[in-house]
């Protein structure tokens, strides 16, 4: 049995009076890629953003239940969301590099988290992160140019490099390739395979083939007909979800009959 790094228990999220997701209970396994799939508006991103308390930035949000990270509930009183996000990083749908140099894009996060090393040590951290994000060879000669001078796919890998430079345990990815062309998408997927050796990845995707290609585990989400509230209807090894789903709705969805 693989080791569980995050245990989601009875998680519910409301936006004001709107009940967005209900009673989600789900394990996230260490050094594996877990995909969250499901039709639009079923709460995939809400679930993902609840895992490092990014959801709290939205006014009027309310969360109940538990997200146990290595046994500790991240919603417990006394847990600072800043330190949660330091351990559970996030990559967004649209590449969002800082309006700074490629070097600074990575160095900033390292510095604000209390890095006190020398310039040479920081250089090494930046280089390692870029290497691990498979971006180093493309940018090593222009580290001090703007992050915006890169292509969309390179920008997204820069955002991944920025995240892994902090050595988090878990990386949450919210449709990380949906704004990219097929070749850039492929590179991100290959990168994810490399990264899972060192990190745990949870990825939200609209793209069924992508989920089947990259993930080890899949959680299928669905809206309840009458309440419009999303929940996880099936979870398991990706291969099983895509070949022998136990829920009829999952089968319809992964075979493209709706959604």
């Amino acid at each position, binding site marked *: 049995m693989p080791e569980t790094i995050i245990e989601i228990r009875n998680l519910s999220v409301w936006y004001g009076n709107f009940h967005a997701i209900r009673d989600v209970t789900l394990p996230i396994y260490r050094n594996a890629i877990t995909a969250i799939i499901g039709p639009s508006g079923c709460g995939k991103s809400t679930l993902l953003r609840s895992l*490092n308390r*990014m959801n709290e*930035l939205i*006014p009027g949000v309310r969360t109940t239940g538990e997200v146990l990270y290595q046994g500790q509930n991240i919603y417990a009183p006394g847990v600072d969301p*800043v*330190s949660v*996000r*330091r351990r559970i*990083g*996030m990559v*967004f749908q*649209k590449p*969002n*590099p*800082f*309006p*700074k*140099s490629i070097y600074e894009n990575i160095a*900033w*996060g390292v510095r*604000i*988290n209390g890095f006190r090393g020398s310039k040479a040590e920081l250089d090494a951290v930046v280089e390692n992160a870029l290497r691990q994000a498979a971006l180093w060879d493309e940018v090593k000669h222009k580290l001090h140019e*703007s*992050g*915006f001078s890169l292509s969309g796919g390179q920008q997204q890998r820069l*955002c991944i490099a*920025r*995240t892994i430079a*902090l050595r988090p345990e878990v990386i949450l990815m919210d449709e990380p390739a949906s704004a990219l062309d097929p070749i850039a998408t492929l590179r991100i997927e290959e990168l994810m395979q490399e990264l899972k050796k060192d990190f745990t990845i949870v990825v939200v995707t609209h793209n069924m083939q992508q989920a089947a290609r990259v993930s080890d585990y899949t959680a299928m989400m669905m809206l309840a007909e009458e309440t419009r509230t999303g929940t996880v209807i099936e979870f398991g090894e990706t291969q099983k979800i895509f070949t022998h789903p136990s829920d009829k709705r999952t089968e319809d969805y992964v075979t493209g009959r709706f959604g």
Partner: protein
Amino acid sequence: MSTANPFSENAEHLRRRHLKGALLAGLAFLAILLAMIVLVTLLIDVFLDGLPWLRPQLFTNFPSRFPEKAGLRSALQGSFWLMILTALMAIPVGIASAIYLEEYAPQTALTRWIEINISNLAGVPSIIYGLLGLGLFVRGLGLGRSLLAGALTMSLLILPIIIVASREALRAVPRSLREAAIALGATPWQVIRDHALQYAMPGILTGIILAMSRAVGETAPLITIGALTYIAFDLRGPLDIFTVLPIQIFNWVSLPQKDFQRLAAAGIIVLLGFTLLMNALAIFLRNRLRQRW
């Protein structure tokens, strides 16, 4: 055999639509022409009157009852130091207030009430600020008719402008930029200091330009607090009495001699130059910030 033009249908209707567009463009052009004519007439008139009087003495001499000896020395000093002191007080307080309201303040009825009042304050007639300054700084704090009292009054006057502009600039910071920083484990203050403020800085500077340009031309509140019009010595400190360019100009305009009218025109040219210089500096700073990435 002629081929039918496939675009010919409804040609008459299309012609009328284009005509309407051209008519409106013409009206809009007339409007700008009118504004330009008034401005250019004003400038020509001022320059014709004032240019011969724009001599070195104008900058080095104190006011005098003889027009050929009179200058703007004390008014220039007053305006210069008034701007410096006002900027030093209003800019930090204004930006800090904007940061608090936009980034930290809980969205309560009290916060909204404060916000509405600040927006309203931006539209309060300046003479009201003069009366407030007279009561609070000149009399209440016992600062007298000093440069400091004037700068404090001016600061109050432009504070709402700076706050409103800074808040709008902070609100325009893209959510994706904030999220990127927060997801790296940044504290709210680190996000504000390194990203939100930097992104908003061009907008904040625009607000400061507007505010300072307003302050340099304001006369009413300074007259109210008793900024003297005849000062024949150098400014010795922030608690000294003072005068400013618009007050000196006003004083000269109100004198009967024709030469003082011309001197006033020269003063207007100096004031215009002063304002332009300040704006140019701020625009230069803003563009440098924008060009970084």
